[in-house]
Each structure stands twice: as C-alpha cells, then as structure tokens.
C-alpha cells in the first residue's frame, strides 16, 4: 500500500483554477520538497468540489480538514502548522454562517453538498443489468410492502400526502392523478410511463432508465396495484437504444424473479409491462398524442377532457406519469410521506433532476431539493460560466419555458416560483447562456424547433408559429420594424390562447420571456440594426482600418465572394453589400486591420 501518510487535495475545478489553485498546487509541492516531505505527503489536483463560492478549496486527508478561500501565500502556514505540527489553521476553516462556528471536518459539512439524490439514488452505484444489485439497494421492497401490508387506498394516501408532483413538466399531484384512475371503474386499466423526453438538451429520463430501470418498473407495478391496472406500457423514443436495452434486461430479470407477471410475491396481484417505441416526435410526449401514437393512430393530441384517467389507451382509464415521477415512488413508500415532504418547499416537495448544459463549466446531471436557488445550481454545482464570461440568462422548461436572468438568480426553484417569474420547471433541461448569446436568436432557435415539431392539427400552432419564426428571422437580419415587435407580441398571445394542446399553448413562451427580459436587445436589433452579442451574422460589419492595412491583398484573395477591393500596397475596402460575413478575411489578416462591428 501507499507510503504516503497524508494527501493534500487541491481543487482543480475551473472556478478554483481561476483563483490561483494551480499556484497553490505548485507552492505546496515546492514547500514539501524544501521540507523533505515529498515522499510522505502527496499533493493531488481534483475536480470541482461544488463549493466554488468559497474556493480555492484545499482538503487534507485522512483527517478530512476542509480549507476554504486558500491563497498561495497560505501554503507555508498549512504545511508548517497542519502538516508538521498537526494543528489546524483555524482562520482557513469554513465558518458556519448560522452560528459562526469554524467547521473543520468536511464530514460535518453536509450543507455544502447542495445535491440530494433521490430519483438518481442508484444511478452510478449499481450495475443496471444486474437485478441483485438493485435488490441490495432496496428495489422491490416497496412493492412487497404495499402488496402485503397496504391496501391500494393506503398507497394512494401516502402518495397524496407526500406532495409528489409530476416531473414531466405539468407538476400535477401524482397521488391525485392515481386516485382519479383508481375511481374510474373499468374491466381494464393501464399504467403508462412517459419516456418520450423530447426537450432539446434534456437527458434526465434517459439517465434514470439507463442507470436504474428497476425503480421505474417497480413504481409502475405500484401504480397498477393502487389504481387497479394490471398492464403497463412504457412509451420510449427509439433514439434511446441503450435505455431500451437495459429496460428489456431489467424486465426479463424482474419477470424471472416474479416481480412482474402473475401472482406477484404471492399476493394474487398480476402486472405485466410492455415497451412501445416512439419515433421521436416532440408532440408525442404530450399524453393524449402519446396515447394515440400507441394506439397506432397519428401522434396528434386531442382536447382534454376527457383526461386519460377517464378515457385513455383504447378508451380505458389510463394513468400517465413521467419516468422521474415514477423513480421517486418506491422511496416515498419505504421512507414515508412525512420524510419526503420534509425535503423541498411547501408546495413542491422532494427534489428535481436537471440536465445542465450550455455555457457552464460542469455540464452534467444534477439533483437538488426543490427550493435550491438558480444561483446555487449555476455557480456552485455548475461551477459557474465557462471561460470566465458573464452570466446572461438560463433557459428552463425547454421550448415551452422561458429565460431567466440575473435578477432571478436567487429565486428558489419550484413549480410555482418559476411560473411566477415567467418561465416553468419543464422536464428539467437547463441551458445556460453567457454574454455572447443573442436572446433574439435564442427565441428563434426554439421557434425553429416548434415549427418543425408542430403536428399541424390546429392552425394557431401550425401557421402561427411559422409566422413567429419568420418575424424573428426578419429581426435577426436587421430588417425588423417596431410594428413587427407589436405583431410578435400579439401573435404570441393569440397562439397561447387558441392552440389545442400544450405545445402551442406554450411555444411562444421563449419569445414572450425574452421580450420582457431583454426588450433592449429587440430594440437594438430593430432600430440600431445591431446585435451586441455578435451572434446575428447579418448584422455584423467587417471593416478594414485604412491605417493598419498594409495592402498585402491576403484578405482579397481569401474572400469567397470578391467583396474586397484595393490596390497592392494600398488600404483595402470591403463592400458591405456583397460581404457574406464569413469571417475568412478576419482570420487571414496578420495586421489586425480588420475589425467586426
């Protein structure tokens, strides 16, 4: 085993590196060398600790001492005091803001760990293709408990008490939905798991199915037991081959053990699950469209009511829940509604999984208690903005959501708060944008998606979104007028009010929220014909500085459209009417004579 007696871990996350953690690392190594300790103490650079606000972080093992806001100058003291004399350097310890106490041992610093994994409890721990590992981690215990010790009504009561709300976007209370399905008497009922996950940038559900498929199978059986359904269907997009493969393996193993099939655990309850594949249409994530797609009809939504709980798959009562919603269920039944309610906020209990993407350092999958602020998610767990750029906005809720800005950073995330500030929880995609992102282009990106994904059944969505997209394109090309902005807003309102399903009812949200949060940027595009983020190519101007240009002709030769003219050894000029803003001249010029406006 190791000769090293101690390890010093230095955070090498981007945030800490920006505040000199590399110099700390170097100083530690040099200092240990000087003191002749290099063979006994090892210095290691780690990934992000997720506590960037207090960085740079230095952790000493094995005693778990956690130093915060360390500077390169502190290194000598750490070595002299802590390493040699065994005395902690108190002034570098974290001070608990609640009671001003210094906390030395990171074991007692649970509060710095902003994440809590409930839905992801087994993701990354168990082998998803080995049911025994899942069983060791409590899989099917909740099902056993419910079948043997609880009535269906009791299961529903726990679900209602827990306050679990649907994680697929709508946030409807799961227990209540189960109760509706239970109350609708029928010879046949269904449980459907919505694994369509169509939001661009979202991969929460895929990760759950790939990492812990049994949690979903168990929850579906529980739902079947309490609603009186003995058939389950998982609607999953065919683009998720690995998730499908793991689900198939999990279903086979669960059947062999008898957790699915006839007379489960000797209780007399039968439940079987089938897979149904979607072709990747966004609208098929909407529950009525999803059901039609499973029936072999066109994937188009229908008006609710009737809700699926009344008349769903094959006109039978059907309970539809999202993957992540289901993944929470077994834990709730095992640990109780009170336990679950103690996590999160009053009206949104539990946790939410988010897929962090965009201009953020720690792109990844995270799970935080409801009520965590956007600031904590982006700047602590997410490690802040890439390349030291400035945060501009975060888009939540995908194509149905809105963007949130600096002033919303301290909003505790839950279903109601996000709606109150003009966005929505959505399914959990979170795309972070920095100063280089143009908000008009962002809205345009989502509208392009919606236009592509609209099923075409109702005209507000089919035609209206297309018109929104055209208006946005016009604005990003510098051809927009103030009347266009009025039209954009009015049309958005009309589409929201008159569309048939959730897709059209929410698709103008990216437009409306950017208009309300970044009105200046719209005005800039329209009146100044400028895009300060520099993203709208059509609004860029490449200009040659006659002072700096030496007339080498390199730019003129590289220009694909012959927009650059000028005599050899004389300043050149770009014809703005011909220029296609391809950037080739800018890259070619060795004299920094070309600038972009």
């Amino acid at each position: 085993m190791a000769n090293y007696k101690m390890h010093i871990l230095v955070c090498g996350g981007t945030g800490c590196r920006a505040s000199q953690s590399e110099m700390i690392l170097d100083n530690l190594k040099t200092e240990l060398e000087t003191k002749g300790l290099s063979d006994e103490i090892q210095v290691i650079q780690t990934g992000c600790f997720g506590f960037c606000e207090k960085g740079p972080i230095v952790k000493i093992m094995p005693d778990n001492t956690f130093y915060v806001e360390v500077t390169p100058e502190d290194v000598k003291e750490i070595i002299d005091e802590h390493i040699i004399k065994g005395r902690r350097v108190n002034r570098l310890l974290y001070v608990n803001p609640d009671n001003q106490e210094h906390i030395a041992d990171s074991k007692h610093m649970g509060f710095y760990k902003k994440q809590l994994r409930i839905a992801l409890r087994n993701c990354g721990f168990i082998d998803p293709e080995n049911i025994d590992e899942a069983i060791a981690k409590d899989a099917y215990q909740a099902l056993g408990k419910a079948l043997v010790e609880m009535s269906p009504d009791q299961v529903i009561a726990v679900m209602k008490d827990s306050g679990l709300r649907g994680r697929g976007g709508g946030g409807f209370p799961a227990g209540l939905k189960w109760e509706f399905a239970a109350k609708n008497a029928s010879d046949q009922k269904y449980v459907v798991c919505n694994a369509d996950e169509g939001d661009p940038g979202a991969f929460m559900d895929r990760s759950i199915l790939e990492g812990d498929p049994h949690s979903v199978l168990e929850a579906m059986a529980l739902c079947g037991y309490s609603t009186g359904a003995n058939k389950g269907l998982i609607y999953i997009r065919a683009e998720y081959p690995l998730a499908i493969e793991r689900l198939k393996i999990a279903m086979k193993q669960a059947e062999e053990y008898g957790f699915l099939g006839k007379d489960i655990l000797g209780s007399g309850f039968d439940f079987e699950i089938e897979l149904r594949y979607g072709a990747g249409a966004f609208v098929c994530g909407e529950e009525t469209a999803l059901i039609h797609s499973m029936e072999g009809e066109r994937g188009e939504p229908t008006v609710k009511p009737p809700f699926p709980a009344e008349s769903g798959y094959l006109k039978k009562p059907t309970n539809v829940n999202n993957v992540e919603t289901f993944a929470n269920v077994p834990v709730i039944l095992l640990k109780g509604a009170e336990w679950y309610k103690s996590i999160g906020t009053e009206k949104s209990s539990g946790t939410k999984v988010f897929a962090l993407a965009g201009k953020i350092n720690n792109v990844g999958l995270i799970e935080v208690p409801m009520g965590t602020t956007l600031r904590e998610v982006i700047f602590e767990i997410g490690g802040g903005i890439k390349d030291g750029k400035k945060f501009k906005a975060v888009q939540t809720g995908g194509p149905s959501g809105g963007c949130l800005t600096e002033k919303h950073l301290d909003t505790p995330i839950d279903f109601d708060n996000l709606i109150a500030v003009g966005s929505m929880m959505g399914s959990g995609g979170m795309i972070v944008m920095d100063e280089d992102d143009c908000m008009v282009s962002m809205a345009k990106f989502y509208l392009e998606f919606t236009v592509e994904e609209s099923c075409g059944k109702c005209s507000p969505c089919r035609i209206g979104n297309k018109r929104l997209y055209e208006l946005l394109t016009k604005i990003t090309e510098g051809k927009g007028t103030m009347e266009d902005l009025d039209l954009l807003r009015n049309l958005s309102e009309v589409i929201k009010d008159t569309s048939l399903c959730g897709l059209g009812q929410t698709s103008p949200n990216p437009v409306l929220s950017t208009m309300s949060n970044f009105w200046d940027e719209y005005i800039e595009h329209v009146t100044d014909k400028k895009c300060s983020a520099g993203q709208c190519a059509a609004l860029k101007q490449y200009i040659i500085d006659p002072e700096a240009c030496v007339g080498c002709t390199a730019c003129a030769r590289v220009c694909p459209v012959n927009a650059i003219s000028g005599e050899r050894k004389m300043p050149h000029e770009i014809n703005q009417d011909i220029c296609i803003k391809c950037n080739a001249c800018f890259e070619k010029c060795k004299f920094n004579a070309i600038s972009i406006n």
Partner: protein
Amino acid sequence: MSKIFGGIKMAKIKSLADLKKKQDEVRSKLNLRDKADNPESLVQIKVAMATCGIASGAKEIMEFFVNELGKRNIDAVVTQTGCMGYCYAEPTIEVQLPGQEPVVYGYVDSKKADKIIELYIKKGELVDGIIPQNYETIDNK
C-alpha cells in the same frame, strides 16, 4: 457483464419474506466483494456506462481495465453502472480499494487508466483528477 444471468433461470421470489431473505443474501454477497478475505487483492471498479459515458469512450476504458488488470494479475471486479452525473468529465470511473472509501476519477483515457492501475490500485497513491462527491444520498437523510 451480466454473467450471473447467462442462461440460468432464476428462482421465483414468492413472498415478501422471501424478498427480504434475498436482499440479505445479495447484500452479503456484495459486501463480500467489498471486504474480501484477501483484502490486498480485491479491487472494485465501476465504469459509468450511460449513453454519455459510452459516447466518450467508456466501453474502451472498461475493456482496458478488464484486459489490463488480467494481464497484470490484479484481482478485481469491473462492473458497469449508470450515469454518475459528471458528464463534463466523461468517461468517469469509481475505484474502491478494499476497506477504503470509493474514489471517482474523471476524464479517464487509457493513459490515465494505466496510471490509476499502476499508482492508485497497486500502490494506493492518488492520481490527479479525483472528482469529490458533491451530493448527499438518501441513506443520510
């Protein structure tokens, strides 16, 4: 990977009591893996094999570990697992030396994997690029 299930029909679990028994059994089996009789030799490696991991080369890394650990005569269990959440640092692996806390390494390519075997697994020296656990589990809540 799932050798345990290859062709063998598993016995049905017929009651809650049976399920509890099964859980005790699999738990001790997994524990055995942690605290093997010969703690010097049994190492446990989990490779995050969700779509994101595989896309960045986790399969090759898993193969690398299986092959190299065999060649270098190190007794180890290499298993796959789901996404650990550190997509920015894929491929990620978790290494647990006998009797020690598991350690997660990110950005594992074959060079890093080689280092992890030679330095961490063989000598217990940590290797740069550890990803600290930054979340709580339900066991503590």
